[in-house]
């Protein structure tokens, strides 16, 4: 399962966090700090997977944002890369050429969209069209 989703900017600012495993507020801050340090310093040519505390963190950089998803050790990393891309494409479709600023000012909408893609750390819908339709229907 996906334990949490993290969106961090290049400067280390948190744009979105979603936790599917129990982490207290303090633990969350710590995790964010650790992972920021780990991921933001990686070079561009390196692979998109880091091993961290026994979990794997899959990340991908889109413009100025890093999309990170922490998965269990036995999950399929390549698939999670696809899930990240799935999410980004849906955001793009919704906002029309999404950029970081969109996600800052409309963070609640970004959350609604994420809630249509993942529940309980698992994938919910593989059709981008369906997700878009649902979001529109709820007039967000």
């Amino acid at each position, binding site marked *: 399962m996906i334990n949490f989703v993290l969106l961090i900017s290049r400067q280390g600012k948190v744009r979105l966090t979603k936790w599917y495993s129990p982490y207290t507020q303090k633990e969350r801050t710590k995790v964010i700090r650790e992972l920021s340090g780990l991921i933001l310093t990686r070079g561009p040519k*390196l692979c998109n*997977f880091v091993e961290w505390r026994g979990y794997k963190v899959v990340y991908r950089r889109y413009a100025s944002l890093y999309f990170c998803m922490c998965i269990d050790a036995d999950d399929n990393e390549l698939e999670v890369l*696809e899930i990240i891309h799935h999410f980004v494409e849906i955001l793009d479709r919704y906002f029309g050429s999404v950029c970081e600023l969109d996600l*800052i000012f409309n963070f609640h909408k970004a959350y609604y969209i994420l809630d249509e893609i993942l*529940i309980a750390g698992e*994938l919910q*819908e593989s059709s981008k069209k369906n997700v878009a339709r649902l979001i529109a229907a709820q007039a967000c």
Partner: protein
Amino acid sequence: MDLAINPFSSGTRLRDMIRAIRACKTAAEERAVVRRECAAIRAAISEGDQDYRHRNMAKLMFIHMLGYPTHFGQMECLKLIAAAGFPEKRIGYLGLMLLLDERQEVLMLVTNSLKQDLNHSNQFIVGLGLCALGNICSAEMVRDLAPEVERLLQNRDPNTKKKATLCSIRIVRKVPDLAENFMSAAASLLKEKHHGVLISAVQLCMELCKASHEALEYLRKNCLEGLVRILRDVSNSSYAPEYDIGGITDPFLHIRVLKLMRILGQGDADCSEYINDILAQVSTKTESNKNAGNAILYECVETIMGIEATSGLRVLAINILGRFLSNRDNNIRYVALNMLMKAIAVDTQAVQRHRATILECVKDADVSIRKRALELVYLLVNDTNVKPLTKELVDYLEVSDQEFKEDLTAKICSIVEKFSLDKLWYLDQMLRVLSLAGNYVKDDVWHALIVLMSNASELQGYSVRSLYKALQASGEQESLVRVAVWCIGEYGEMLVNNLSMLDMEEPITVTESDAVDAVEAVLQRYSADVTTRAMCLVSLLKLSSRFPPTSERIKDIVAQNKGNTVLELQQRSIEFSSIIQRHQSIKSSLLEQMPVLDEANYLVKRAASIQAAVSFVNSAPAATSGGPLKLPNGVAKPPAAPLADLLDLSSDDAPVTTSAPTTAPNDFLQDLLGIGLTDSSPIGGAPSTSTDILMDLLSIGSSPIQNGTPTSNFSLPAIETKPVPVTPQVVDLLDGLSSSTSLPDENAAYPTITAFQSATLRITFSFKKQPGKPQETTINASFTNLATTTFTDFVFQAAVPKFIQLRLDPASSSTLPASGNGSVTQSLSVTNNQHGQKPLAMRIRMSYKVNGEVRLEQGQISNFPAGL
């Protein structure tokens, strides 16, 4: 920032607040803005302001994301959830999921609202409830609400169904006992057409299998056919724009079904056989030019490795992995290396074929890949390929970067040790590793190396010569330096005389002076640490014995450290100077070659990692007691007791204690006798108690410090000649010690012994016993002056342990003519009260004048013939 905030409304719009916060230049400004907004929100909440609740909650969430505390908003979430309107509910649930986590008590209060929402007529509201439940519910809530969710699994709206299914996953995770309730529902869900529902359903099935074995069996029996059909349909389906990713229809569905197949097929031959074909089809058909395709292939390989696959299928899988390995994409290679580690368990041969590529990956630029590759290589090493593999790894060690060196070194060392085919090869590899990365080599590794060298006598010459060369080349690698210094000390003659050369070696010319130079250079190097320097001192001491001409020079070098601020070094240098100067007689026996270190013993000890502290020097790194310690006094093994008993210093006898000058040489002597040293108190502490020690020694006293820890028991050269139940280890130790003390020749009567010999004086004892009085012995002592000047006022004193009585008769003269032109005799009479049980032992002290100067010499005699 001057925003006019109307205290009666919640003021700013969300985006204005965000803009305001982003415009802040300092943290203090930001805090001020946030504080203002929080105050407004708090006011609005307490007044129950209806109009802007939605906006306020959104603001609160933003503030939360910045990291500020927002507990006051939690109850507001609850109220919003309980509101009637959809937007309020929505933001309320979002707030709930963001501001709370499942461990908080407040969560329980939502249960009732959730129940109502799950029964709502509006599907979207039901969806909200399911989403919230699925993301953060606690175990208690689960128990309350599980029946609702079960019911919703049958709902006609696919959107609701899929959410309910995912929610059930969380339920089963939180309360695995409920798994059976969902079994049949899950199985029937697999017959759906909607992809979202299918994905969720497959996921639920996986979760059920993990939670309950019964569910696993059930699903295995009922769902396999359906799964194969799903996979086949989606794999064969034509272009479906809605689900297409990278040219493949719904790769997510592919992957999940494959994963479920793996769980069902694990350990079950029938199941595995059934899915064989579809696996083969998907593996061969899927294109691998895009990430989606590769993700599917990856899952295929995982599945094939996980079930009881046919060999054909396995070969297919390994081939895919091979392709992955040579892919330029780092992600793919990483994934391949990961898979290969699991594949090794299944088919080692096939993985071996890819060894070359894997070795390449060890040198990759990406650290994640390097780590994986190194682990994989480690697993791949076997007897046949260990030499080339090690060579590659060591070559790479030369160029690898610092963080990686440590891992690499550790792995190489453990490979080399595990597979050390022949000693020469092991030696060579270790030498290379030490030269390249000695600073990263762990202590027990180079200890093991020394143990090996000590055991491999034919390789000692080669080792010392190679180490000498290496020392010249890579002097900054600490471990290398230490090993080299030790070797030069031990096997110095081999170095200089090119002894026991191996065939492929070229002779090198190293003079005695060169050898000393090398060690001296290390000693004086700024960067050498205490342990290394200590080892150098010992080594120099050994060389002074092996290469007598260099003795003077070595004495000077050692003497330089007499004033060293590090206690350890100071002590050693003083003691060693003393040995070199004064105790020529015992020096060479002291410094004989170390006995062969018992390898098996060492390994056992090392495994148990005994930190047997070595006696009076503690700077030694965790050396086991069998370790090659830098002490001339050899191995500290036997406990103090037996030795002490030997001398039986607990006996209560009288004699002579002249005031003991507490100079180092005295302490040193005591050390030799192994009395009174605890290892934690360095000798520095000893001087204060040295008078006591001296007392003990010479006579009375409490039993010597039985501290149970091994004290340096270099002791008594002649112990071996005694048929005394000495601890055998001590005998071992002293095996190497030939006697500078002359062994008595077979003589029925008690042979004459040289009781004491120094550069200036020799004393011989001859014995006579009265028949019928076995305990009494008359000793005739004869003193000879070996120096070129006459001794005057010669006084001889002796002390014996408690159980012996001593009587000294007056000497024949108190002047000793020079150069042995006559001798003085004196008669002693000893009575051994424990005759037959304990042997004689005696301490002696001589004082005399030379040209008006007073000289003192003292010694211990323990080479009394047996039976006295």
